[in-house]
């Protein structure tokens, strides 16, 4: 007994005709990320924050060019009396000037109190430092978190127990306290051997510490996702073809958690920017003369400069605010765009 061939073809054809472009010559499938990108493009907020972030990235990349145009650099000291043309009050050289030091043509965002370093130059170089730390620390926690989370869920048993308990251990630490105490120790004891010297040392140690303490959050999310994914039949199909566990985890399972990981990453980058700022503000992060936004905030509050010179605090504060806000808004948009329950564009 067989079904008439014609009938079969007809049903196949009718199933095909559901897609309008099924019979066009070049048929390209749309992946989830292509669909998500279309949705992000249609969101104004997402596109504005993406624009801001791209702008910021360009600033960080072209920091030397920008400061060259301005004709300043982030470390040269200036006599504050020379910089601020104010005959009304007499100053002792080296003391902070009262009031706002408004931008001028030579110093686009004014200068620091006391040292007279150019704020614009320090902000753009600071963007470099802040973004590098945030991106690399996030990358580190994403790589560790995804791999270990997926392994814990896929292998289960002892592997799961060891990884999960280690995650619990890390999550049980009072993080800020730990960061505060560990960062100087790491820099003093291990830094020179493992993490480089000079100005890269504090940056490298911040990346390492933020990255290392950031992964358990993601690992938990990934583990939960993989626990359900590994029961799916496509995983069994891969096993039936003889695929190795490594292939199954990295080729079959991880692409399916990519959406979650991407959302997590876009929301972790601003968290790491603020964490870096907080640590630098508290004096254990990036150190003078390397500029970072948190370190600038730290300097503005030392000696109560911000009371005399709020501008000095306002500039890095605003930079931080705009960056973190943009990342968070973009993160929300990415999450919405990747949500399968949202309406299709």
């Amino acid at each position, binding site marked *: *007994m*067989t*079904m008439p061939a014609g009938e*079969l073809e007809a*049903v*196949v054809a009718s*199933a*095909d005709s*559901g*897609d309008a472009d*099924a019979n066009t*010559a*070049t*048929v*390209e*499938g*749309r*992946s*989830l990320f292509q669909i998500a990108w279309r949705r992000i493009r249609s969101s104004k907020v997402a596109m504005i924050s993406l624009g801001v972030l791209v702008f910021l990235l360009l600033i960080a990349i072209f920091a030397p060019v920008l400061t060259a145009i301005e004709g300043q650099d982030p470390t040269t000291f200036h006599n504050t009396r020379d910089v601020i043309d104010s005959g009304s009050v007499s100053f002792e050289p080296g003391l902070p000037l009262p009031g706002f030091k408004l931008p001028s043509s030579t110093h686009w965002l004014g200068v620091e109190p006391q040292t007279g370093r150019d704020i614009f130059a320090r902000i753009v170089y600071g963007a470099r430092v802040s973004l590098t730390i945030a991106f690399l620390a996030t990358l580190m926690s994403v790589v560790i978190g995804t791999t270990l989370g997926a392994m814990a869920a896929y292998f289960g048993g002892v592997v799961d127990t060891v990884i999960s308990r280690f995650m619990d251990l890390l999550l049980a630490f009072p993080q800020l306290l730990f960061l505060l105490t560990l960062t100087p120790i790491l820099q003093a004891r291990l830094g020179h051997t493992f993490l480089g010297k000079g100005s890269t040392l504090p940056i490298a140690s911040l990346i390492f510490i933020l990255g290392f303490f950031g992964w358990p959050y993601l690992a938990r999310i990934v583990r939960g996702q993989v626990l359900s994914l590994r029961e*799916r*039949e*496509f995983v*069994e*199909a*891969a*096993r*039936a*073809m*003889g*695929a*190795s566990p490594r*292939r199954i985890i990295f080729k*079959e399972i991880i*692409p*399916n958690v*990519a959406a979650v990981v991407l959302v997590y990453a876009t929301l972790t980058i601003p968290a790491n920017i603020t964490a870096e700022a907080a640590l630098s503000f508290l004096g254990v992060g990036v150190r003078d003369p390397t500029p970072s936004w948190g370190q600038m905030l730290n300097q503005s509050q030392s000696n109560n400069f911000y009371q005399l010179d709020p501008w000095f605090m306002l500039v890095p504060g605003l930079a931080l605010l705009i960056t973190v806000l943009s990342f968070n808004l973009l993160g929300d948009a990415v999450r919405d765009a990747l949500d399968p329950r949202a309406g299709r564009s």
Partner: protein
Amino acid sequence: MSTEANVAASEIALHPAADDPEALLAVNGLKKHFAIRQGLLIRREVGAVKAVDGVSFSLRAGETMGLVGESGCGKSTTGRVVTKLLDPTAGAIIFEGKDISGYSRAEMLPLRSEIQVIFQDPYSSLNPRHTIGTIVGAPFRIQKTVKEKGIKAEVQTLMERVGLNPEHYNRYPHEFSGGQRQRIGIARAIALRPKLIVCDEPVSALDVSIQAQVVNLLEDLQNEFNIAYIFVAHDLSVVRHISDRVAVMYLGQMMEFTDRDTLYSKPLHPYTHALMSAVPVPDPAKETRRDRILLVGDLPSPSNPPPGCVFHTRCPKFRERLSDSERERCQTESPALELKAPGHFAQCHFPEVRADIANAQDAGIGAGAVESVVSPGGVSTDLPR
């Protein structure tokens, strides 16, 4: 019944898995128990779910064995153990003369191209992040049978063979219908030219019209490549259409095993009778007139199967037509899967032929799809293939 069927049936050896020299696959006393563990820190084994509890059958190259039974009877687990997606607790799986039951992943690797699986759910069996090209090309990449450059051509040939447009190579699974997705799954399964495919309810998730296409495709591929199928299903009509032999399972054990024609014309086991009477008859007059055997009660827990015959708690014959002494036998002595008629195995102390039930069943997968001849008395004659 035709004599031809009986001759074919008698060729099955005395024991269902006994050494049939031509068998591609022989399964003997297969068991799969899932441990139940309890305890907070020290997880002790407190019992086992006996998903498969002693199943034996054999299968020749190019043959189809239907595996039927209600949900939870262990038919899918049997399929997964045979393909070594699960490791058996006990028993032998002899594939081409070698017992593969204890093989490790590395040892199984070369055999993976010989034994493949088609899954039930076409939505879950294809990775949503991979294009069709990647999915169907995966067997070649994993087994490294075809060079990277040649994969695309191979995949497109396969896609064409299973009735898909090869131009859809770069599409994602969500852009296909259920039937098309199942064709993708089939293309992936036949990619390495396996000798055995375990079809785990391949058509259960599909519309009836699509079911027929997929079943026909499977048959065509079987003829073309001489593939043996283990066809797991709960739809008796589909199984009747595609199978050469049929095994009926209940609570992890095999109730009846014989060739297709014998099973459908002279079922011996009361459970088979009940299963068959549950199939609706596509004739309203007959449907209202016929007697249905209803199974009462719930399926017993496979972690604590009833003593004696596992079916006695729900057996209509046990309840209605057995004497007390006969009942005691059912409750205490578990029957073995024995030869009750030539080529006809049943695991029952009191088997009987109930042609009335078999005759009522001439439903195919859609009335028009089965070329059956129904005589005015409702007695079916033989089914030519």
